[in-house]
């Protein structure tokens, strides 16, 4: 196979001491910025762009790729330990991960996320190396109508995280829609819900909402319960790493997460968040330990989404390397780095810059290995954070959340929003409204709206596009099955159980 020859050549590029050094620097830096909320990989790479004036193209791309993968690893750490997601792709990780950390299994949650990231990152990188041309063809067949149908499917599946009361869950979901609508409407250029504030024209960053509702809200709730003696954090119970049972519960979610994350990441408008929602919903459905979800924390709910976000990070590289299409902020900035070398990323990149592209792919494999080696020993250190007495720990979380939010755009308005949302999060927690649907509504709502309106513009107002396109019809059918399937299943089960008495002659 030709690909193996290319890949071997790529490893010979990546395995020079200098390039290995850049890979190590990149992954370390990436892990660090992943841990900090607010400082994402896109911003970090943008700030490092001037380095392209100094070093060879291979070295700077290996550095950037290390940062990109590293941030995906690091982002889960604060989600799990502090309930403060560092990246939007790790918001779902906080749901079960933080529960696990509170019940003494923080080490296992961190381990399953690091190893799951390694497994999924490696699968995803293999996908980039071997399947890129096929995957990109599939991804391009997704038009606005197909994306809208995908969103419908996502809405149906994520109803799993709505919580026990669907009225409360839907209320939260719609609150998320409203927050997501804030800012300039892309389709018409008109501002919505900005109340004349120019800082709100670009909308509210999803990280601020997640940190406000989860971290600040939680902190306020804990402070109000300080003397009730409830919700004690158990720093560590049992083994630091994963037990045999936890391994057995993790490996399937890793593989499923990787299979969901890679293709959706490769879609031009797929993103890293949707695969984490889907993976979470699927794991919750398939788990044999449903009672652990939302209580002591289920390891499947960490393993799946973590694998999904790393595989989608690899997926994003597919359209970037095969077509020169930047489909995420980080990819866009990496492409502008190509340009400062006078390299025009496009469909010819693979043939004109084979050294660079295969060196980059090989370095992704190496980055994955370095990251898992770097992250596993750190777990012991991270878990010690939980031994800090609650008042100091929560004060630290508050400082961390505030500094991180200010770091996103140095805007005082963002801090006001953070604390308003924190107060809202406290009230929601107090009156038992789930907070996760707010984030899901905020991400999915505007996406669904935009794709719906695009599809309508293109078809000139013709509704039938949603079922005339075969791919769109398939997705809508799946969504329909997801919606009514469980009810029919339950009905059939009831019939079957009562079967013998009511259907005489049944063999």
């Amino acid at each position, binding site marked *: 196979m030709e690909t193996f020859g290319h890949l071997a050549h790529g490893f010979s590029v990546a395995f020079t001491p200098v390039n290995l050094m850049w890979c190590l620097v990149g992954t370390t830096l990436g892990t660090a910025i992943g841990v900090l909320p607010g400082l994402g990989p896109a911003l970090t790479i943008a700030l490092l762009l001037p380095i392209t*004036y100094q070093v060879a193209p291979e070295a700077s791309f290996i550095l950037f790729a290390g940062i990109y993968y590293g941030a995906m690893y690091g982002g889960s750490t604060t989600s799990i330990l502090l309930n403060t997601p560092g990246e939007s792709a790790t918001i779902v990780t906080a749901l079960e991960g933080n529960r696990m950390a509170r019940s003494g299994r923080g080490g296992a949650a961190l381990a399953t996320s690091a190893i799951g990231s390694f497994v999924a990152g490696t699968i995803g990188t293999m996908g980039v190396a071997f399947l890129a041309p096929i995957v990109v063809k599939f991804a391009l067949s997704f038009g606005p109508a197909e994306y809208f149908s995908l969103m419908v499917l996502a809405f149906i599946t994520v109803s799993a995280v709505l919580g026990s009361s669907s009225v409360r869950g839907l209320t939260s979901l719609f609150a998320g829609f409203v927050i997501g609508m804030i800012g300039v409407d*892309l389709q018409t*250029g008109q501002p919505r819900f900005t109340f004349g504030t120019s800082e709100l024209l*670009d909308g509210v960053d999803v990280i601020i909402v997640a940190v406000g509702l989860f971290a600040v809200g939680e902190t306020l709730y804990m402070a109000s319960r300080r003397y009730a003696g409830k919700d004690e954090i158990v720093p560590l119970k049992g083994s630091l790493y994963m037990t045999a049972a936890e391994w057995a519960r993790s490996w399937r979610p890793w593989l499923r997460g990787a299979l969901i994350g890679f293709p959706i990441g490769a879609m031009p408008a797929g993103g890293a968040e949707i695969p984490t929602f889907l993976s979470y919903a699927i794991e919750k459905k398939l788990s044999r330990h449903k009672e652990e979800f939302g209580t002591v924390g289920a390891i499947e709910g960490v393993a799946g989404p973590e694998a999904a976000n790393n595989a989608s990070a690899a997926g994003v590289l597919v359209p970037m390397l095969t077509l020169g299409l930047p489909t995420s902020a980080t990819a*866009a900035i990496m492409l502008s780095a190509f340009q400062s070398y006078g390299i025009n990323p496009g469909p010819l990149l693979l043939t004109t810059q084979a050294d660079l592209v295969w060196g980059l792919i090989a370095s992704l494999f190496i980055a994955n290995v370095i990251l898992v080696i770097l992250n596993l020993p750190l777990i012991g250190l991270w878990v010690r954070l939980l031994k800090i007495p609650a008042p100091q720990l929560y004060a630290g979380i508050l400082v961390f959340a505030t500094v991180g939010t200010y770091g996103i755009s140095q805007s005082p308005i963002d801090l006001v929003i953070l604390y308003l949302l924190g107060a809202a999060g406290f009230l929601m927690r107090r009156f038992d409204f789930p907070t996760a649907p707010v984030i899901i509504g905020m991400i999915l709502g505007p996406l669904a709206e935009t794709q719906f309106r695009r599809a309508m513009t293109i078809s000139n107002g013709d509704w039938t596009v949603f079922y005339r396109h075969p791919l769109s019809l398939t997705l809508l059918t799946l969504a329909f099955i997801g919606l009514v399937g469980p009810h029919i299943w339950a009905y059939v089960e009831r019939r079957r159980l009562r079967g013998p008495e009511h259907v005489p002659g049944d063999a």
Partner: protein
Amino acid sequence: MLNRRRFLMNSAAAGAGFAALHLTPAFAQDAPQIQIFVPAAPGGGWDQTARAMDQVLRSEKLISGSQITNVGGAGGTVGLPQFVNQWNGKGNALMVAGMVMVGAIIANKSANNLTQVTPIARLTGEFEALVVPAASPFKTAADFVAALKADPTQVPVAGGSAGGSDHILFGLIAKTAGVPATNLSYVPFAGGGEALSALLGNQVAAGISGFGEFSEQVKAGALRLLAISADKRQEGIDAPTLKEAGIDVELFNWRGVFAPPGVSDDDKAAMIKLVETMAKSDAWAKECKNRNWTPILLTGDDYAKFVAEDTARIATILKDLGLA
């Protein structure tokens, strides 16, 4: 507090000056420190302009160093008020801005505008391209315009955000062809990448965006280039300008620099000279070539006149499109 900060900044500048003195004594006397204000997040076109300027100015030894500040958001209308109010009178400061900000000021009904800052120089422009998927029935720009005249609702065109340069060019083309702007079927995408994928997936009839967004796809034969919005034929590009194709429209997505309000005439003249020297250097020409920027230098009063004319033109077309 403010005095202390200024004191610290001066000493930092002096420190850098001393460092320069040791390295390059001949230039230390007149190599100033400058500050560049970028009203956008790191990584975009304005930020790259600032960083390329910093690089060239330093390599040409025109400055001893520069400090770049990013205040991003809403097409530059979040940063502009800060530059107008807090940077007032700073003689060593520049703001990068361009056509996108002109559009954003009008569409967002911003309280501040570009007449409040001091025009220094227009530096670069990116002309736009009108492309169709390779399988499209449109072979020339005339075919496209004919279809648009027949029924604009059947010709969905992909491009960047509503009211941005791509949308404006589409509006101008339609207006020249006598098609009412309100009937157009424009499909805005958040970035060039997404618009490109809609074209490659045959989801839309045509696309309008910066030439650089499409150039590689055109070279690979995945897209057909119908026309470009430049003023004249471009070397190495096998397509007519819109004017040659019978559509009397010319458009550059230009970028330039402005000094804050209230700077002295001497500072203004010195800054124009500095930027002009940079723009005429070989190093700058090389940066522009690498990044597909067309150098379209225009300084001082001519630049001010150009900004005023472009503002009027954009305001009219945005009104026609129903955005202002």
